[in-house]
């Protein structure tokens, strides 16, 4: 229910992109994407309970190219949401509020999430792939 015609957040069109907003937007976006991933987790557990055939069907999907794309996306989303979530928790505790610290921790969250994702998938492919 709109009470006034005043402009509402997010004011994306008038902002210059900067790490402060990128880290915030990515936290929400990865959170929503991970919510979709929770459906796969639930289906995975149901399939594991249902039997060999059901689980094989699920593995056929996760083993496909679409499955690979989604799994890599969920891996990075998890890594980023985890690291930036720790950043949020430390902010809640009152740490790292100086602008320089905030910018630095934002870059750390983004970069290390990419490195962590890379490390996990290098490990997966060293073990013979995800399928």
């Amino acid at each position, binding site marked *: *229910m*709109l*009470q*006034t*015609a*005043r402009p*509402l*957040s997010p004011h994306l069109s008038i902002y210059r992109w900067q790490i402060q907003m990128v880290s915030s937007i990515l936290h*929400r976006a990865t*959170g*929503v994407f*991970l*919510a979709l991933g*929770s*459906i796969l*987790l*639930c289906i995975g*557990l*149901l399939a*594991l*309970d249902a039997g*060999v055939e059901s*689980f*094989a069907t699920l593995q056929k999907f996760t083993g496909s190219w679409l499955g690979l794309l989604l799994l890599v996306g969920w891996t990075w989303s*998890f890594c980023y949401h*985890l690291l930036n*979530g*720790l950043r*949020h*928790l430390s902010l*809640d505790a009152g740490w790292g509020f100086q602008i320089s610290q905030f910018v630095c921790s934002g870059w750390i969250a983004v970069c290390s999430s990419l490195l962590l994702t890379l490390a*996990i998938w290098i*490990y*997966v492919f060293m*073990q*013979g792939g*995800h399928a």
Partner: protein
Amino acid sequence: MSTHLRTPLKNARGLGSAKSGVSHWVVQRLTALALVVLGVWFTILVLNLLHADYFTARATIGQPLNAIFMTAFVVALFWHTQLGLQVVIEDYIHTRWLEVFLQIVIKFLCLFGALASIFSITHIALRP
């Protein structure tokens, strides 16, 4: 844009606060804290089961300690998901009926997801 720029505070006055904002905030942080530990545990578990066959995977999830951790993980996960999606909907959906509809659907789906997961884990643990 209309010239009606009166602050919404005027409309809110007298209605009182919902009085549950702090508990939402606290539970979101508590589930986040739990998910830091349980999420890392879950990732390691999945990586360990990478090329395990069906029966190994089932037996592993069915081990008492793993089943308990897994249950804790899905409870924290779906609870945290509901709280997070609630805020996203509050912020971006400005059509009242759609907002209320989505909030209810998200709550039901998250509860269903948690219950279905817990049922599966329990069933796997009791019938390995």
